């Protein structure tokens, strides 16, 4: 019987079942409130040069969840195009946000408008606490989430990297939490990895790291820690080459996810030789 170096029988190599475990690791879809998502990279649609660039970057990223904002339509320029002419809701999960809302009342109002304008009960809930940091007002967030959940919304809350608040959001019925890595648009990366790790260990719903990612390694790191997905906008749209960065982010999220599932080696202070000593002169 021919045995390879790695100890596999040749029959095993030719048996497609052999690779099942490997494939299962790659095909792990994210499920939130009964909805299944293909990509673990979620993207915002703001700050692009035009709709064509938006569409190209999103397609390159492989994202199937895209966030949008709700605003007054332009009634003076009747030729103005609609974002959804480029991003067909049949092809993407459109996730409306309540960006720009600083009070519970505004956030609830915008969420209701989003539902009325759209096709689903999904909302990325933001109640912003402060203009300079755009940090969430977590007390307002919990209050708004309670109201919307009662009205049947699927509330995905943009929250701080606070494990206690994250747990409270889960307790009131949020099917996922979206803690920030750093302030929105800051590109600082994960500022508080230990809190993020505590959130990942303590809440039993998907965790989507939202906001603050600067480059591919930030996204990979979030996924290596065990985040279920990463949401970003500025890191892609604000890059010198948004479409290239979108591709980089796709690989970063995939690589980070696989590394998480593969299980990294422990950190050690001293060396461990990889080459055997045996057989040396």
């Amino acid at each position, binding site marked *: 019987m021919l045995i390879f170096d790695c100890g596999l029988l040749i029959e095993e190599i030719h048996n497609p079942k052999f690779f099942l475990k490997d494939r299962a690791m790659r095909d792990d879809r994210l499920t939130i409130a009964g909805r299944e998502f293909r990509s673990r990279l979620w*993207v*915002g*649609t*703001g*700050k*692009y040069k035009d*709709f064509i660039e*938006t569409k190209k970057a999103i397609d390159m990223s492989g994202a199937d969840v895209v*966030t*949008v*904002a*709700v*605003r*007054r*339509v332009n*009634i003076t320029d*009747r030729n103005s195009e*609609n*974002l*959804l002419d480029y991003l067909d809701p049949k092809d993407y999960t*459109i996730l*409306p*946000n309540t*960006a*720009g809302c600083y009070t519970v009342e505004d956030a609830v109002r915008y969420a*209701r*408008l*989003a*539902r*009325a*304008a*759209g096709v689903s009960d999904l909302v*990325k809930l*933001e109640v*912003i606490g402060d*203009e300079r940091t*755009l940090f969430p007002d977590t007390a307002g967030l919990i209050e708004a989430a309670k109201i919307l959940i009662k009205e049947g919304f699927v509330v995905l809350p*943009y929250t701080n990297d606070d494990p206690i608040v994250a747990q409270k959001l889960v307790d009131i019925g949020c099917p996922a939490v979206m803690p920030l890595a750093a302030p*929105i*648009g800051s590109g600082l990366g994960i500022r508080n990895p230990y809190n993020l790790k505590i959130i990942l260990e303590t809440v039993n719903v998907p965790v989507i790291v*939202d*906001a603050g990612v600067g480059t591919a390694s930030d996204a990979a790191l979030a996924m290596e820690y065990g985040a279920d997905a990463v*949401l*970003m*906008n*500025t890191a892609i*749209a604000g890059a010198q080459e948004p479409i290239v960065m979108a591709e980089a982010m796709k690989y970063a999220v995939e690589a980070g996810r696989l590394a998480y599932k593969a299980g990294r080696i422990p950190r050690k202070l001293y060396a461990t030789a990889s080459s055997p000593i045996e057989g040396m002169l």
Partner: protein
Amino acid sequence: MHIQVNGESRQVREEINVTGLLQDLQLNVERVAVEINLEILDRGYFDARILEEGDRIEIMSFIGGGAEIADF
């Protein structure tokens, strides 16, 4: 008669319904939300709801956004 649409005063014909207003504005009914006097109007009532003098109407739609828009 006069109504307010997205903060601007507008003259419209009598007996116009919401669908008629959206058509006049060349807007896709499927892609907007309509709020009249702070109450959201379900799409199913766009035909039935006749506009009245002084109605304050907000017509909203989706635009590009991540989390960073703070300019409304």
